[in-house]
């Protein structure tokens, strides 16, 4: 599988036309066309020893420790957006889900459901972006699957990725571990991903300079758990935004929370778009953000470590955990009053990831 591209192409007679060609039903049929697609596109881009085994499964040794496993499916529309595409998102998203356990993510699987007629040029771009994202995060895509559905039965491409990682000894992170008095930290501005995607949707004709914050957070997490292993829990506020994720943790831990609106970073462009569309940035999706809950006496150190990492430069302590009997997440507003920060109700924006 590690053959150079020229020889790889010769193996299949006529090479894939990645400029003008399209995905056909035969590319998912299990026959020669599929083998060629996998070999020339996926195997070449994702090249690693496990994939090179060429089996239906990747076999590997894992370092000692508890294993974290997570899976996520990506159906975002549009496929390409400012700051990323479905490929980089599918890699970052699953890496982050694994990393939120404190684990070091090691390997990913990738399953593709492609609509017949999808341009091979776009698929090549997406696969290239997955490969680049995985390499940058130090993770390998070691096994995969390709299915092709009839035209009109999909929407370009859907991607599922699963990820596996190993949790260093001594870490016990879980959403049920938040305790009254703990501090709540956030690594940067909220709403960037949702607004970047929204700005590309038809019918919402506005130009904004906001780029998705899509990023692999495993490096940041490693720095955080190394410096402050007492962290109670980490979670990435994706769909449903910061508000929904805070509520998830509050419910799981049986606690309330009090957050400070002025401490929550929101970019002015994001605020402006949300204002125009009647959205609340607290509910807008993120793809490169995390919430950390830690004991109060470790918050200063954790904040320092987060701010020292490129993905945590504008990190902030946004509030604290309390023993509210109703389990409400409350917020002191910039005005000086209070409000509840409730779960997202309904669908703020479909197909955001």
């Amino acid at each position: 599988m590690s053959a150079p591209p020229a020889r790889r192409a010769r193996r299949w007679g006529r090479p894939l036309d990645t400029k003008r060609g399209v995905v056909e039903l035969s590319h998912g049929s299990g026959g020669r066309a599929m083998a060629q697609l996998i070999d020339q596109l996926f195997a070449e881009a994702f090249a690693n020893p496990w994939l090179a085994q060429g089996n239906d499964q990747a076999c590997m040794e894992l370092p000692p420790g508890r294993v974290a496993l997570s899976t996520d499916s990506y159906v975002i529309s549009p496929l390409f957006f400012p700051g990323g595409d479905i490929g980089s998102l599918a890699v970052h998203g699953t890496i982050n889900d694994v990393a939120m356990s404190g684990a070091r993510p090691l390997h990913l699987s990738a399953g593709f459901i492609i609509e017949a007629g999808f341009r091979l040029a776009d698929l090549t771009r997406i696969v290239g972006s997955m490969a680049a994202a995985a390499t940058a995060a130090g993770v390998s895509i070691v096994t995969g699957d390709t299915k092709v559905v009839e035209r009109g039965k999909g929407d370009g491409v859907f991607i599922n990725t699963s990820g596996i990682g190993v949790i260093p000894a001594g870490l016990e992170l879980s959403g049920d571990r938040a305790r009254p008095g703990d501090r709540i930290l956030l690594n940067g501005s909220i709403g960037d991903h949702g607004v970047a995607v929204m700005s590309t949707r038809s019918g919402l004709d506005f130009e904004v300079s906001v780029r998705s914050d899509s990023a692999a957070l495993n490096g940041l997490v490693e720095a955080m758990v190394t410096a402050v292993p007492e962290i109670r829990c980490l979670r990435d506020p994706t769909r449903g935004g910061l508000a929904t994720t805070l509520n998830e943790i509050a419910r799981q831990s049986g606690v309330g929370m009090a957050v400070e609106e002025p401490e929550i970073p929101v970019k002015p462009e994001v605020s402006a778009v949300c204002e125009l569309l009647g959205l609340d940035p607290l509910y807008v999706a993120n793809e490169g953000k995390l919430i950390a809950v830690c004991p109060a006496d470790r918050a200063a150190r954790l904040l320092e470590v987060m701010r020292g990492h490129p993905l945590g430069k504008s990190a902030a302590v946004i509030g604290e955990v309390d023993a509210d009997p109703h389990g409400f997440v409350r917020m002191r507003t910039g005005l000086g009053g209070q409000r509840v920060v409730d779960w997202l109700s309904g669908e703020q924006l479909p197909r955001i990831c």
Partner: protein
Amino acid sequence: MKYIDEFRDGAAARGLANRIAAQAEPQRHYNLMEFCGGHTHAIYRYGVSDLLPGNVNMVHGPGCPVCVLPVGRLDMALTLAGFDGITLCTYGDMLRVPGSKDQSLIKAKSAGADIRMVYSATDALRLAREQPEREVVFFAIGFETTTPPTAVAIKAAEESGLDNFSVFCNHVLTPAAIANILESPDVRDLGTVPIDGFLGPAHVSVVIGSQPYEFFAREYEKPVVISGFEPLDVMQSILMLIRQLNEGRAEVENQYIRAVSRDGNAKAKRLVADVFELRRQFEWRGLGVVPYSALRIKQRYTKFDAERRFALSYVPASENKACECGAILRGVLKPTDCKLFGTACTPESPMGSCMVSSEGACAAYYSYGRYQDSAETA
């Protein structure tokens, strides 16, 4: 965010709060109705109530267009959406409002009806141009604020000879609703709803001006302060109302001077007068049948009137008996007085319209205001 943050500033809010506290006479109660859902939303979202003294009580009014639309009108929209070949365009808020038989537009959409969420009448017009083979109907709701854009869409459709576009018109009028509340037995005779003054509409008044309220102030001796929708606007207006009450005045004052004039927007009013005429009567959720309180499309534009085009007729429909939306819209009850609130009726599965729109009193209280429950029971 420039020109917005200034109206949400914490230091200025503290200053206003101090002035309100100094101005409000301790032995007196001030019951002020904020007419618009926009005000209700701002009060809860920014926690304005926390900055008011205990004897200043805000009563939520009926100014939420989604909330006041009766079930029967929603049923008509559902009928429309069920016709073959129709694309129904609606504001997102309407999607989850419950109609008869546990139906809603979002359920109809899931079942296959072609229902699209749009941000404006112009979006619907564009859809009509893009798909000439389909009948595109715009589900028009709202007070005087959203009426001019609907008029613009109808005129544009006429000018471009578009014949697959029509409007299901549900535009309603603010002054008629205020008069209805002031005339209601609850307020006038029984005194069960004490209303000492009104925070007048912001965006509606941009269109109609402040002049239409002068009658209420005079006739019913209630002060009206037209108020912007930002939290500091609301607080300043409250201060102005308290001053009027203390001084025994009942005048129309305009806090929202950056947008509202006495005469309003003449061009918008002309447009509306050109396309719409008064309905003899219209049913409102909560207020019942209110004479001359809504608009319909004039005969001249009849082909753009979905009600006539598709021969729809209004059949009043009953609401869930336990739902207190009606009383809440009149200010008679608070959201927490309703047995369904927060149990059977939540934003996820609303039983009444006040729980749907973010401008509805129930949704605003549920989403933002419930910390008060914690304060009471902690």
